[in-house]
């Protein structure tokens, strides 16, 4: 396989830098700084130290025996990103970008957040590194994820509710970019997913690849061979690309990204960018996205705030087009059932995002054989979702 992205940030025809000229110099500086520091062993050591001593890596690759037995014959492993400090994989990237910001001499960081996990991770790292932090969050999401808003404030961050557009993740991203344009001289934008203009998709992937690197080592130790299948949820796609990337050259390893089908991909209420989207430019890069025939972006819908996004990272679009990875939809209801199943079989409450990945493996169920080894990326823990699960369950009962 060829190395992606190329020097213009293209993954095949996807990616690139579709941003106002005002941001170009900042993006080029960021890319240069990232390349310079990544070549410096001290930079990686500093990140590794925090990942280990602060976030608690490496995270376990746990053999979910009862879930496996429940579903059939295959062996199902869970990569426990939920056991990270702050409860999700988002901290891997926040630590990486936070250290980079500090090396670049920036004193302020900003972030966008949907479910609040990336906002919490960024607020955490900002506190740790003594930086000022502003988090942009759609007003709708500040209601859905009130607990995370409070968490960010406790950590010393300022949470700015975004009232434009659909008041969710995409609008938070727009507003963070707008703020960055105005404050580019002293502010570092900690982007939370493998989306946006180059170099973000590449940089976020590289900060998240530790998920796949560890998994590769751990599964070889546990099974003496590579897995047959990797499954991960895809909103913007950072946990999935982090899991997939180190296995890219291993053709025997299949990869499935699971996107949110909301109330169903044949209804207007979904976030199934790969199943229903078309190519277009959104938030700085060319990728698949949900849009109407006039090129206006359509609002996404998912029970999971972290997957409620009308775009997807450009590298995923590339992997879909070259058929290296497959992308499938899972509905709100299927994700909830899978969440409950994991609770009672393994005593683990997964994040609603991660529950989408589990739900797809539940669907595969009997088609898997006893020789199959499957790894699911359990990207986050579900504590943050308990309230919305209650609301959804009660709502369903009242219908």
């Amino acid at each position, binding site marked *: 396989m060829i190395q992606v992205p190329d020097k213009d940030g293209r993954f095949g025809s996807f990616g690139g830098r579709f941003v*106002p*000229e*005002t941001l170009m110099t900042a993006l080029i500086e960021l890319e240069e700084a990232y390349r310079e520091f990544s070549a410096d062993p001290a930079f990686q050591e500093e990140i590794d130290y925090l990942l280990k001593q602060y976030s608690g890596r490496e995270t376990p690759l746990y053999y979910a025996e009862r879930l496996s037995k429940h579903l059939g014959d295959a062996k199902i492993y869970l990569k426990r990103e939920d056991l990270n400090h702050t409860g999700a994989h988002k901290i891997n990237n926040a630590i990486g970008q936070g250290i980079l910001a500090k090396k670049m001499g920036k004193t302020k960081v900003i972030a966008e957040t949907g479910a609040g996990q990336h906002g919490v991770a960024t607020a955490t790292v900002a506190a740790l590194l003594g930086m000022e932090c502003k988090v942009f969050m759609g007003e709708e999401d500040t209601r859905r994820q009130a607990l995370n808003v409070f968490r960010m404030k406790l950590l010393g961050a300022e949470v700015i509710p975004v009232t434009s557009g659909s008041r969710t993740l995409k609008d938070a991203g727009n507003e963070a970019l707008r703020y960055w*344009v105005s404050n580019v001289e002293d502010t570092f934008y900690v982007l939370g997913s493998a989306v946006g203009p180059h170099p973000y998709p590449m940089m976020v992937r590289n900060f998240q690849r530790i998920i796949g690197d560890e998994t590769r080592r751990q599964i070889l130790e546990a099974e003496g061979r590579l897995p047959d299948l990797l499954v991960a949820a895809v909103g913007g796609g950072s946990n999935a690309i982090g899991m997939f990337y180190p296995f890219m050259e291993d053709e025997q390893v299949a990869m499935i990204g699971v996107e949110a089908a909301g109330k169903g991909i044949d209804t207007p209420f979904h976030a199934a960018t790969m199943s229903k989207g078309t190519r277009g*430019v959104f938030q700085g890069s060319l990728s698949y996205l949900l849009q109407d025939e*006039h*090129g206006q*972006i359509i609002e996404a819908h998912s029970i999971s705030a972290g997957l409620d996004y009308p775009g997807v990272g450009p590298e995923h679009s590339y992997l879909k087009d070259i058929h290296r990875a497959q992308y499938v939809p899972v509905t709100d209801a299927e994700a909830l059932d899978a969440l409950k199943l994991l609770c009672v079989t393994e005593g683990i409450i997964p994040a609603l995002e991660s529950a989408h990945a589990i739900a797809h493996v539940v669907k595969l169920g009997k088609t898997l054989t006893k020789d199959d080894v499957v790894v699911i990326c359990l990207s986050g823990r579900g504590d943050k979702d308990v309230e919305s699960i209650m609301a959804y369950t009660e709502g369903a009962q009242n219908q």
Partner: protein
Amino acid sequence: MTTETTNRMDLTFQKLKTEGRAALIPFLTVGDPDLETTLDIISELEAAGADMLELGVPYSDPLADGPVIQRASSRALRSNVHLRTCMETALKARQAGSELPFILFTYYNPVMQMGLDTFFAALDAHEISGLIIPDLPVEESEEMRERSRAAGVNLIPLVAPTSSERIARIVSGASGFVYCVSSLGVTGERSAFHSGIDEFIASVRRSTDLPIAVGFGISTGEQVSRFAKICDGVVVGSAIVRKVEEVIPLLAEPQTRSAGLLQIREFVAQLRP
């Protein structure tokens, strides 16, 4: 090339040069609050002394725009105004007698979804002289530049105070004018411009023989005069869109509509340097 000499924008800049004055370039969100009003506002702007006009295409995710133009975009989108409607509005304005060169201001995605073949084939027939695509930096614009050249339409490049060594590359091979972004940030009125603004404009002047215009954040007659002394054109956007927003209640009622339009005309007339 004959296609270039007949471009209405180029002819206007030539004429203004002989008159020794800078172009006043108002920006308008098409379809805010509705298409019929847009046509009326265009004729008011012309009567107020506008020299050319930026027609803003409403977009769901206008990254380069501040709150005023965001709100105007939302209003226009609610009336189902899209790229094609905006082009049709330009043609209608021409048929109604407007002599102004029209510059289409659109984000890239609507253009991409229309398809570049369809888009470029339609531009000339719809009286469009120039294009501004704020999210298409020089690195991504090669095909658009070639197609614009072939179509005789000016793809206006934007340069920012932070562009420094990028300026030469951005302006090379450009046509129409060079758009200098007055300050870091999104569109919207502001009292202070980037501290190095004069040096920035001077450095752009040294890099190109094209006319240069300045925009982003210019909202008063005083600011227009300041920049008219050192530029060939001054763009006023959010301040006019805000004025439109203010008079929407007047525009909505038949008995107050002309008073509302007059307010817009007077606002733009006093901007003229």
